[in-house]
């Protein structure tokens, strides 16, 4: 199975269809080997219309460069990625990281809303990850 990604600017992205009881839709996830968990950020939470009632506070904190955020889990989310002849279908808990946007000035909110959601090692490590920017090739294969 080969799942092809795309470079946007110089960053590798994969398209994913997410489906849960409370929402479904498409997201573009940044392939991030530095992220232990695949995580939705503020913008995609809003675009997918995920209501607070679906967010279960996580017992584990999330930390990254720039500080801490509130962390949540959404149980049993189906991940679907397309390959040339097949689909990768996988169900797991999805992490959500949210900034406290109400407390921040508009310019800062605008920047936070540009931060992409990430495809972390929890899913990437199920594959061999090939990322060759010079050749324009990024893919997951197994």
């Amino acid at each position, binding site marked *: 199975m080969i799942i092809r990604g*795309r470079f*946007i*600017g110089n960053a590798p*992205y994969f*398209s*994913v*269809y997410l489906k849960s009881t409370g*929402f*479904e*839709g*498409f997201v*573009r996830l*940044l392939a*991030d080997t*530095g*992220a232990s968990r695949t995580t939705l950020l503020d913008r995609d939470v*809003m*675009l*997918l*219309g995920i209501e607070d009632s679906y967010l279960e506070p996580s017992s584990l904190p999330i930390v*990254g*460069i*720039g500080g801490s955020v509130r962390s949540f889990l959404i149980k049993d989310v189906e991940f*679907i*990625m*397309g390959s040339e002849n097949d*689909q990768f279908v996988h169900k797991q808990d999805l992490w959500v990281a949210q900034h406290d946007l109400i407390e921040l000035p508009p310019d800062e909110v*605008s*920047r936070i*809303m*540009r*931060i*992409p959601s*990430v495809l972390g090692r929890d899913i990437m490590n199920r594959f061999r990850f090939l990322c060759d920017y010079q050749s324009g090739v990024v893919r997951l294969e197994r």
Partner: protein
Amino acid sequence: MEEQLTDQLRSFETDYVWVNENKDALLKEFNDQWIAVKDKKVIASDPDLNLLLSKVSDPSHTYIEFMTSEPLEMIL
């Protein structure tokens, strides 16, 4: 169903690649605005994301991006 979903995923991907490839032209028209793109066409725009979402019938199946010329370095 499976094939249809794969096609929709490809279409979504085509739209965000199109936005990236046409970023300069889109910035001239939509700087500091959110845009919604479907089938390589801007179907709605607004500086306010909530207002944009009210203009799009199917936001979770539509590629939505904030267009800005403000540089931003990301270290994730």
